[in-house]
């Protein structure tokens, strides 16, 4: 019973990490249907941003880096969208392969710029320690995830930009004839989606390695969250991330880490049998 109680915050904090890394994908994958395999490398870019800012800001780097990493990763996403992805709309599988190529290049670039070994990002002193089994840095990630979700929700539902974004997602053609500049909306969507990856990257420096292959550790999990949550559904992503986080933590507690991963995969396949479109779907009447 004690173990059960102890695993609960761990599961939720794993969920928070999953949510942070997947949140950007609900934009790029969910809203635009682009399978961005370079998402992991945008996460990495965020982490390296925190690393670079250390020289200027010392131990506060993690906080200062949040907005900066958002901008850096967002800009990288924007460039990717403008130069390549915009030619690929409606061909999601091709974007998958294209962005995989991009991710390879970015990984090697990071290796050449920062060296192959991991680098260190120092956490602020006030993030040391914790309450019971819940360390402060986990708490920080949890709060950050909540704030980010709240921000994304407000943006999508309370601003004109966000509403236009949703309009384009639901019916691109109709949105275009209603006078929405869909190209501009796409840019914005990609900027935000990639920027969120950067934010996730900063958060990950608190708990994981910072190196050129950082992105590869998270990319598969991130996509699974979006798939289980339902395309483009914010609520779905939140519920799926929390569910997968808890599942992961309990499965690992009662078996081991390797088996837990296999169990999570099996549960997702089984789940898709019941809800093939994920938890929350937007219905559409169109044939394919």
């Amino acid at each position, binding site marked *: 019973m004690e173990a059960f109680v102890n695993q609960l915050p761990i599961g939720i904090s794993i969920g928070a990490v999953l949510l942070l890394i997947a949140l950007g994908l609900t934009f790029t994958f969910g809203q635009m249907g682009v399978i961005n395999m370079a998402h992991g490398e945008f996460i990495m870019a965020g982490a390296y941003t925190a690393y670079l800012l250390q020289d200027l800001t010392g131990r506060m780097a993690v906080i200062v880096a949040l907005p900066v990493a958002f901008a850096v990763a967002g800009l990288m996403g924007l460039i990717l969208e403008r130069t390549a992805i915009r030619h690929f709309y409606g061909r999601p599988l091709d974007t998958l392969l294209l962005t995989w190529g991009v991710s390879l290049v970015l990984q090697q670039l990071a290796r050449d710029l920062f060296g192959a070994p991991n680098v260190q990002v120092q956490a602020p002193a006030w993030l040391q320690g914790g309450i019971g089994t819940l360390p402060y840095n986990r708490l920080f990630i949890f709060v950050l995830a909540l704030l980010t979700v709240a921000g994304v929700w407000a943006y999508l539902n309370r601003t004109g930009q966000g509403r236009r974004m949703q309009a384009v997602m639901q019916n691109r053609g109709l949105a275009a004839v209603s006078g929405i500049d869909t190209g501009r909306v796409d840019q914005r969507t990609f900027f935000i989606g990639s920027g969120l990856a950067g934010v996730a990257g900063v958060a990950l420096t608190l708990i994981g390695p910072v190196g050129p292959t950082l992105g590869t550790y998270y990319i598969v999990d991130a996509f699974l969250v979006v798939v289980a949550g339902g395309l483009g559904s914010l609520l779905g992503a939140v519920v799926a991330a929390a569910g997968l986080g808890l599942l992961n933590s309990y499965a690992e507690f009662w078996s081991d880490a390797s088996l837990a991963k296999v169990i999570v995969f099996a549960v997702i396949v089984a789940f898709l049998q019941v809800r093939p479109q994920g938890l929350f779907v937007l*219905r559409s*009447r169109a*044939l*394919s």
Partner: protein
Amino acid sequence: MSPIIEVRGLSVVFDGFRALDGVDLTVERGELRFLIGPNGAGKTTLIDVVTGLTRPASGEVLLAGRSLTGLREHQIVRLGVGRTFQTSVVFEELTVLENLDLAAAFRRPLLSLARRRRGVSETVAEALETTGLAGLADRPAGVLSHGQRQWLEIGMLLAQRPEVLLLDEPVAGMSRAERERTGELLTSVARDRTVIVVEHDMEFLRRYASQVTVLHEGRVLAEGSVEEVRGDPRVQEVYIGRRKDDAVSAGS
């Protein structure tokens, strides 16, 4: 003998919106039945339910007394119900002939499909003839014009040799001459099979419909011959509410 299509108390709900609300409909063998109604009346949804594309919240559809509930689309096709779509979908990379051939071949055992097609089967030849696409048989369907695509789709439906044909706005965008050809074709098909057509075109309706069902807001508003339906004050009200002059006019 039971009617070929019987719809009982059919309701469909999309996210709280009742697209169909307790629809009953009976179509006898050999009928050429038209479904009309303003936008959002539930015409296409009704066809979708009959062909298995949409699951009803309640009610059922019977084909010659046999319930279609829970069957998948292809199983319903195999029972003899075929359909076309509002925006015609043909396989652009395949030739016209291959499109028709695939439509005709679904009853063959799967293994025999692994063989290369040799020659043109009678059914396919007939469909080519009927649709006037024989000259384009070996062109990819992607190069066809809008009207030709609609014909190809009708041809594919014919090649399936179904008991019941459901057509969703088959003459939209067709020229007058093409409409006439379509109307005659449907009339001749309806001699030994059953045809249900969703259509807005009033003139087309007047010339070819034997029975008309009017849907409005998910319910059956009226049913009968063209004249009866036209004379129905409720039908007039529904249409006049939207359009001042002519009762039921062309367009969608």
